[in-house]
């Protein structure tokens, strides 16, 4: 006879990865989040006019992209996609092995860039690339058998295509520091930045939004046709940017790419706005406010990209573009999503002895999130001011504010992890078939 209550979520639990897997990715992301702001503080002098090259600003950039954004994307997608696609990840060893390879690889890449130490950077790049190939294979296998979410599958597939470009160009860029320049630094750099931020991470963010935002707002699924048009415009923008990077009419194609990207963003915005306006939950909270700010900064990044394409006479345009795109759009968006889904996922992973899921609101920690909200936005504003004013002091203040926000966010994650592990639970709702 099945024990009362235990069988109730038996099927659910079997499709969930063990909590230790997504939470090790989220925990590493929290650590690298703080490390990124510390690296930025170390390189504050160079931030206002940063335009590439080894050093602590580049290390900070990759601690955010690899350490926070991709780390979170791996943990969240391996946990959420199998639920939505109705296909399990398969072996639990693969995600764990990816973490063990990827996490030290990111540290090696960041240290190799910051110190700088090209051989360490090269070793870290190899580890990160191998781990991401493994992740890409897991993601591809899961998406290949998915049903019921064609728009998300299409975005995920396009993101995987972008990941291939990101990995090839990453190897080329890391190799150049070791004397092996495969693609040429200019082209590799242009492709790498565009396909990493707007391609791999951007398309994953837009695609998962079609599930997450309606779920947060309790709204109907967005219009599939418009979502597909938005994706087509985004992919067209990436292809135009790739052609420009390869040297075909660079300025007109870059401007066209920004135009196509803007069209994609406007359509996506519209669909998200409809979901938020028509949903049952009219006040979706601080997490959605962060996501809304992130969408606005995504549009601002395109405006800065247009400024770059038109050779705007401002020496800090590259740095401003990077801050708007990476910290403004992607980091703000991911932190907004993470603070919402972590208590939700924790609720799905009941602690031993609990027969009902604890409510997400009982697992979350509002005060650290409120502190993070203020510190994160202040950090963005200070970084923008640092670039406009050419002031390293503003950059340092922004990094300190960001670090304070990262500590608060880490405190939130630790609180959720502790609360979800606490044994308890009183109510019993047995599986009716068991009795």
């Amino acid at each position, binding site marked *: 006879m099945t024990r009362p209550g235990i069988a109730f979520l038996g099927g*659910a639990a079997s499709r969930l990865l063990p909590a230790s897997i997504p939470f090790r990715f989220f925990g590493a992301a929290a650590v690298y989040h703080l490390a990124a702001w510390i690296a930025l503080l170390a390189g504050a002098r160079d931030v206002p006019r940063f335009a590439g090259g080894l050093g602590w600003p580049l290390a900070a950039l990759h601690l955010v992209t690899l350490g926070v954004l991709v780390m979170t994307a791996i943990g969240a997608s391996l946990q959420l996609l199998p639920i939505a696609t109705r296909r399990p990840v398969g072996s639990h060893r693969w995600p764990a092995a990816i973490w063990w390879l990827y996490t030290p690889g990111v540290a090696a890449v960041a240290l190799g860039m910051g110190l700088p130490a090209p051989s360490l950077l090269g070793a870290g790049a190899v580890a990160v690339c191998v781990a991401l190939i493994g992740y890409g294979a897991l993601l591809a296998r899961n998406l290949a058998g998915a049903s019921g979410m064609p728009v998300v599958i299409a975005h995920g597939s396009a993101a995987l295509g972008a990941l291939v470009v990101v990995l090839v160009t990453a190897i080329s860029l890391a190799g150049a520091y070791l004397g092996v320049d495969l693609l040429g630094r200019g082209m590799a750099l242009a492709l790498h930045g565009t396909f990493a931020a707007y391609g791999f991470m951007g398309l994953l963010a837009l695609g998962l939004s079609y599930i997450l935002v309606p779920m947060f707002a309790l*709204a*109907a699924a967005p219009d599939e046709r418009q979502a597909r048009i938005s994706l087509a415009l985004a992919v067209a923008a990436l292809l135009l940017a790739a052609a420009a990077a390869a040297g075909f009419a660079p300025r007109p194609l870059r401007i066209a790419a920004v135009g196509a990207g803007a069209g994609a963003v406007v359509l996506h915005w519209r669909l998200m706005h409809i979901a938020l306006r028509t949903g*049952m939950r009219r006040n979706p909270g601080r997490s959605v406010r962060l996501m809304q700010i992130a969408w606005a900064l995504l549009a601002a990044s395109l405006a800065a990209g247009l400024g770059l394409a038109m050779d705007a006479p401002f020496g800090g345009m590259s740095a401003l573009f990077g801050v708007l795109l990476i910290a403004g759009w992607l980091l703000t968006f991911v932190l907004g999503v993470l603070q919402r889904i972590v208590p939700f996922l924790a609720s799905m992973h009941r602690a031993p002895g609990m027969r009902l899921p604890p*409510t997400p609101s009982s697992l979350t920690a509002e005060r650290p999130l409120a502190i993070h909200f203020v510190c994160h936005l202040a950090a963005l504003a200070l970084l923008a001011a640092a670039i406009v004013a050419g002031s390293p002091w503003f950059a340092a203040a922004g990094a300190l504010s960001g670090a304070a926000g990262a500590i608060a966010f880490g405190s939130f994650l630790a609180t959720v992890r502790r609360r979800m592990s606490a044994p308890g639970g009183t109510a019993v*709702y047995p599986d*009716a078939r068991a009795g």
Partner: protein
Amino acid sequence: MNAAATGPQAQGRRWVAADGIHIDVRGLPPPGPLVAILELVESIADATPVIVHHERDPQMLYPELAEIGWAAQRIDGDPGEFRLKLVRAA
């Protein structure tokens, strides 16, 4: 007895039977089932149970139900069906 779906988000087929209000959300794309079920549950003022006819275990539903004071228990359904009974928690 069939009951027409109402409200801006309502989807799925609803009907009333002796054991409660039934909702069939099979075939709806995510997050349609979640939204349809929660919309129905939140419209119920008394202790009437809700019987959900689903094609899979709706994992995302349980935390949302817990948040509004409802709980779920799996009951026997047709082959290939995942059937749940939702009740207001005491």
